[in-house]
């Protein structure tokens, strides 16, 4: 039988030690009522070769971003993954280890977490970070919880141009905890209107969320929004695209108390949206409210530097119902991916990554601006993603482009005042000048052939 080492002889010898006749005797405590009368109605065991056939045939029925040219984003991006990342995380030492509860035999994992925390603090500017969250949406939930916990308030303001998939998760989470969710409207420019924000702010609001860039790709007026939050004593919780931190102001610079986001572009495959890599960082005075695992540096009995899980009294296994969160397993191996990825990029590489995204994004915008009938409805600056407005339904163009092997973007119809012609388009460092030009010509063809 696959994966178990028991020979018939082994089983016999073990049963003998137990003084039992058969393995069934071991299950005698199970009442008859709970036993499936006919075992499991599942196919019988396949050889590795057969399973491989089944699964690779299923994979071949899909068409992913390696095959198609992707301009999809909205939180998950077609980013390049250096081969060295896979080389590290495929090592059994990282792949099959458990959470590092025994630090003496887990220094590898612990130091990687510590380095990840350091990377995140350097990107966000906030001094504390944890070992990862499930994804960007749950990271944001936890960030809001921290802010509400700290302020003792129970209302949160979300921006209108918040990632709608994140909003849905926030609603599930916050509603059942009795948190009031308010929304700050977007201005016609597509960014959060500081005036509109002020209009919903009061002393009950403990957390003001901003997403930067927002779900229309636009860079938010972070300073003004932060000022508004500060005025009422609410904490600023920023959900950011970490790639954009290569160039954009860090959350610390505009006074965020918590910064969260989705770090998938740092070496994690898109994988239909999972497993992803949520990150969370915060100001020093929030550190005892942080959810999940945190690693600290210390020394061993011989004075050697080493790492341990720390501040564990926040966590569920110690504090149970009083824990800051229920999170236990997180996205460890993807965190290791992110760490190796950032180590490979370095300061210079990160800058180049930002620049590579920028130039490609602007190149496509230049092309689109030149197509009659097509507009870029929002004038403000963007990082690597933006809205294009078509004179015809975006869904139709998406289907047309797909026929040409292009994944053209995410239709925004109904989101934050967007219409049926609006499409959210992302351009990463993987896109070539040819592909970007082809996007333009496919769109031209589409508009002509209607």
């Amino acid at each position: 039988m696959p994966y178990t080492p028991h020979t018939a002889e082994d089983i016999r010898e073990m049963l003998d030690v137990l003084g039992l006749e058969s393995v069934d005797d071991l299950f005698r405590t199970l009442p008859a009522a709970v036993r499936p009368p006919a075992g499991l109605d599942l196919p019988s065991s396949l050889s590795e070769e057969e399973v491989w056939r089944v699964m690779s045939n299923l994979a071949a029925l899909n068409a992913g971003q390696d095959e198609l040219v992707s301009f999809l984003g909205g939180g998950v991006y077609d980013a390049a993954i250096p081969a060295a990342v896979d080389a590290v995380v495929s090592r059994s030492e990282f792949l099959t280890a458990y959470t590092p509860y025994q630090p003496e035999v887990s220094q590898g994992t612990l130091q990687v977490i510590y380095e990840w925390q350091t990377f995140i603090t350097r990107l966000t500017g906030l001094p504390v970070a944890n070992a990862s969250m499930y994804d960007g949406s749950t990271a944001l939930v936890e960030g809001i919880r921290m802010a509400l916990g700290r302020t003792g308030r129970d209302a949160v303001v979300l921006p209108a141009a918040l990632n709608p998939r994140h909003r849905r998760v926030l609603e599930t989470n916050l509603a059942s905890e009795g948190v009031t969710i308010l929304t700050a409207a977007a201005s016609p420019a597509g960014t959060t209107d500081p005036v509109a924000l002020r209009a919903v702010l009061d002393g009950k609001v403990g957390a003001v969320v901003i997403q930067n860039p927002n779900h229309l790709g636009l860079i938010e007026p972070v300073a003004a929004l932060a000022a508004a939050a500060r005025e009422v004593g609410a904490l600023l919780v920023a959900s950011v695209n970490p790639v954009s931190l290569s160039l954009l102001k860090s959350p610390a610079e505009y006074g965020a108390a918590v910064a969260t986001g989705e770090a998938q572009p740092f070496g994690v495959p898109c994988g239909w949206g999972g497993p992803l890599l949520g990150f969370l960082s915060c100001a020093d005075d929030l550190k005892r409210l942080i959810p999940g695992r945190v690693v600290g540096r210390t020394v061993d009995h011989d004075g050697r530097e080493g790492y341990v899980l720390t501040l564990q009294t926040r966590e569920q296994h110690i504090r149970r119902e009083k824990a800051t969160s229920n999170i236990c397993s997180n996205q460890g191996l993807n965190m290791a991916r992110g760490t190796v990825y950032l180590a490979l990029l370095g300061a210079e590489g990160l800058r180049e990554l930002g620049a590579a995204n920028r130039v490609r994004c602007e190149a496509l915008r230049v092309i689109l601006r030149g197509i009659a009938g097509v507009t870029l409805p929002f004038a403000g600056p963007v990082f690597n993603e933006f809205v294009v407005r078509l004179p015809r339904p975006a869904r139709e163009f998406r289907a047309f482009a797909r026929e040409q092997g292009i994944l053209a973007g995410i239709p925004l119809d109904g989101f934050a005042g967007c219409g049926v012609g609006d499409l959210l388009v992302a351009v990463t460092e993987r896109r070539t000048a040819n592909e970007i030009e082809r996007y333009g010509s496919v769109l031209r063809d589409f508009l002509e052939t209607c």
Partner: protein
Amino acid sequence: MSHERQGATPARWGADLQTSLFAKGRAGRRATTMPAWRGDEVDVRLPADALRAAPADLPSLSELEVLRHYTLLSNLNHHIERGLYPLGSCTMKYNPRLNEKVAALSGFASLHPEQDEADLQGLLCALKLLQDALCEITGFAACSLQPAAGAHGEYLGMQVIRAHHLESGATGRTEVLIPDSAHGTNPASVVLTGLQPRMLKSGPDGKLDLDALRAAVGPQTAGIMITNPNTLGLFETDIVEVARIVHDAGGLLYMDGANLNAILGKAKPALMGFDVVHLNLHKTFSTPHGGGGPGAGPICVTEELARFLPPPLIREREGVYSLDACVGECRPSVHAYQGNTGVCLRALTYILRLGGDGLTRVSERAVLNANYLRKRLEGLLTVRHAEGTLHEFIATGSDWKDLYGVRTLDIAKRMLDYGIHAPTIYFPLIVDEAIMIEPTETESKETLDRFVAVVAAIRAEAEHDPDLLRTAPHTTPVSRLDEAAAARRPDLSWLGPCNCG
């Protein structure tokens, strides 16, 4: 303070510590470079007030330096391909390499979550196969793959139970009963759902106490959360009666399925009377722990509760798969997309490889291994609640404390010196000096026999030289770490050489 590889002192084979990455490299060094832009020049400037004052201060290393750093760090880990990992409640079984190969297939790994169904037919078929298999295994009608971990599954499960009560207007049902042997995530998950956990004291046999239960249920009862087999490795033999009591009181039953490895093909949560169960794919279904994740914690529910599962639902009609967004319905959602899909693909691979019979055999052998080990350890450790041991059992080192003055922690640390990972210790909380041992079915009799020999050797050491245990481990890359200092003066990111000593 020693990072031997840096200085001209001899190396410790395979155990050399590494200075932080942030102390390595040199500005201007490069590993990854970006694809050149081969198009026209465009204006990429951004307004000054959008830009950060200074670039993030990342270290600059060559590709070889990065690989050396992480390869050498990896050597400091215990892992399944190194040796026994008998962590109770964690099911540290072999993680088949085939799973990894399948999940890495470009046709799965390169899919964007915003692609159309037509591009996803193979994936949706695979996920449906997994949902169906998990339903067959648990006896339930519907499955959601969205939760990214066990605790996340608990949370979604509680949301489902909450939604059920809200829908039926039972807003007063806010209490969830939880046995005191439960995992910490259970009460924490309940609280986050806006419900209140209420502890239920276990009986002297380590199982649910029916009288205590009867006394606790009432109109305030939203439900009960039971780990079955429980964290002592025992089957809740009264489970059918428990279900009757809770259901009669109007509550629902949630099963923490983290211990499903004991009962595959042997018992189904639905037959026990549960309404919801979560499974830990990273335990029972062999997906790797990755040093702390990603795992996956799908939930399965009754027909009746299916309407509270997160959208989109995978539908199949004549071999064509589609995603039903359930527009207009009010369902919870706990992840931006559909959860840890890559982990789900690994679990499906495992299920196909083993088949129905194989899965049943998994539990048989997991239980056989645990019982054999329990029996063989008699006289070395004191086993609690031995009767009815399934996949794991609780020993204690309490007599070692009396006889030799060494604690469970000392025994565990000394095991590390023998190349064995320590069992789970001090959990469940209801057993003093608990040592929770789960060998799993992928370990051989020889390995179990060696474990027994190691415990015997350590016991002899405890007798003759208890300090050896109290100061253990001795052969690991570091010795015991000062956790108190770490918590007192948290040093959570690299700001320079350690001043923590």
